[in-house]
């Protein structure tokens, strides 16, 4: 039965450190086999949310359910892989020893350790102390540690910090592989363009509140962001074709996503222009928009988050910012 339960269910979770509110009424339902990108500014509460899902922090209010198990105070769920941010492994031990230690604590065999070390390209350094590892090598070791026991839920806190582009690609390919096997993944990152192609859903946190939740398409639909089209000698073309005037804005054409097809058709058929650049809004644009909105709302003393529904089951979702 519990296989059908969502991997993570947060209901009205709030938390504060001393007087400071860190999480405010966060809701989340994350299905198995989905990747969630957890985004937000520094100090937004992302890491705190992860610790809460791990059972390391008990929420002041609300409920946390992980892999079908409701977490009581101080209880820790199993089958979870976790890569904390800024971790320094025991630097006098070798990479092999560190990984063997964590494998042993999870009851994994030593063959799995050797396999992961080879797979992660650490074979040449496995018997050198971790102290001598580069940042990226340490990060790979940390990621190997997180997936050593075939987790059902994987929490990665800024996993690509310090990784070279190929290593990041490798990390995401591993993540996708695990996700396809039914593992739910939560990735907290500031490298939006890296995570964008791999996420199923994204959650944006701002000052402890959920600012937005949904798939990329849903987030785009909610946003007021448009498509930008540029080409050479744009001004003269616009002056010759009156219908373009309404899209012209500061040196390029801007339209909503729904108008994109019509505009491209018009440009190619009516204006005979085939060489143009189209810039579709990306995750970073949506992120910037949300953060700017949050800041201006805060300045005006308004609440920005009123009616957001949170579910990774996005066919049911209808989000209005």
């Amino acid at each position, binding site marked *: 039965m519990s296989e059908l339960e969502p991997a993570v269910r947060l209901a009205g979770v709030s938390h504060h450190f001393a007087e400071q509110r860190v999480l405010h009424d966060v809701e989340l339902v994350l299905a198995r086999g989905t990747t969630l990108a957890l985004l937000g500014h520094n100090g937004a509460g992302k890491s705190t949310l992860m610790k809460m899902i791990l059972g390391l922090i008990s929420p002041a209010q609300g409920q946390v359910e992980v892999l079908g198990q409701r977490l009581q105070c101080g209880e820790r769920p199993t089958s979870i892989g976790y890569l904390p941010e800024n971790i320094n492994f025991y630097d*006098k031990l070798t990479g092999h020893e560190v990984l063997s230690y964590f494998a042993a604590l999870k009851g994994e065999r030593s063959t799995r350790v050797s396999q992961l070390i080879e797979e992660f390209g650490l074979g040449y350094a496995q018997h050198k102390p971790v102290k001598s590892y580069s940042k990226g090598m340490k990060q790979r070791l940390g990621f190997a540690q997180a997936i050593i026991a075939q987790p059902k839920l994987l929490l990665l806190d800024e996993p690509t910090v310090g990784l070279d582009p190929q290593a990041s690609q490798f990390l995401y390919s591993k993540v996708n592989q695990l996700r396809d096997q039914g593992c739910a993944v939560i990735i907290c990152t500031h490298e939006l363009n890296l995570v964008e192609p791999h996420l199923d859903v994204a959650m944006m946190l701002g000052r402890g509140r959920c600012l937005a939740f949904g798939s990329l398409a849903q987030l785009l639909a909610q946003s007021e962001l448009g498509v930008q089209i540029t080409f050479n000698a744009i001004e003269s073309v616009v002056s010759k074709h009156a219908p373009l005037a309404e899209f012209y804005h500061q040196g390029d054409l801007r339209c909503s996503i729904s108008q994109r097809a019509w505009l491209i058709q018009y440009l190619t058929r009516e204006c005979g222009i085939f060489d143009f650049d189209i810039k579709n809004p990306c995750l970073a644009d949506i992120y910037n928009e949300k953060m700017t909105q949050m800041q201006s709302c805060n300045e005006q003393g308004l609440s920005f988050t009123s009616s957001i529904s949170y579910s990774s089951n996005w066919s049911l979702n209808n989000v209005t910012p």
Partner: protein
Amino acid sequence: MLPHELTVWRGPVMIIAAKEIKDSLRNRWVTVIFAIFMLLALSVTFAGSAVSGTLSFPALASVITSLSTVSVFIIPLAAILLSYDAFVGEEEAGTMLLLLSYPLTKRQIFMGKFVAHSAIMVTAITISFGLSAAILLGFGDGYLWGKTLSAFGQFILSSSLLAVTFILISYLVSVRSSEKAKAVGSLLSIWFSLVLIYDLILLALLVADLGSTAQVIVNAMMLLNPTDIYRAINLFSTGTQFGGVALLTKSSLSSGLLYMLLSIWVVLLAWLSQRAFARKAI
């Protein structure tokens, strides 16, 4: 029976202990500690020979007294250096957070570290001072086996208890510190106060000669300090009476009671440090 033994051996406590031992053995400090213990044991054993130029050994009582006079400083210091970063170090590195996300209890983490650090200290103490006893028995004349073994046995046992006491004091401070440097600082002041300042105050009280009440207070205060209990135990075991602590031996305390007091310290500190760790927020 066998499966059970296997689970204990491969259980989390032993896995953690094995890793802690490996980690500590790569620590330069631990090598230094071993070397100092060895040096101490050998220099006290051969002290007489160096002066006279022939192979002659001091009396058993004076060996034990010299050893305990120095080791009351060295053993606590060694225990502190070995274990001061047990908790605050992992806290700073972020590995504690990771360990806690594993299916482990805090008690298992605590026990794993405690087993490892105690094993290292007890091994260092036993090997170095055991060697000293072996040399006396093997090369010296007129050392009675029974008396020598019992004196060294007591010395090793009490030294181990002293080491464990200071490992636990280090844990308590380590759990409560936010930085490694602060932990070292606090622990060195505790060490300095317990092995030096405390006795100076007692000495001052005695010198002031406030009559029999002062004597009672001094005796009671000695029982509150684990290093003084340790000194007293080793004076008892050899039956000698000199030094400031000799006053204690005049009182009606038996050595069994002293061991019990030291054990109470161990139990109390174990409870306190374990509780501090269990209550520590992330």
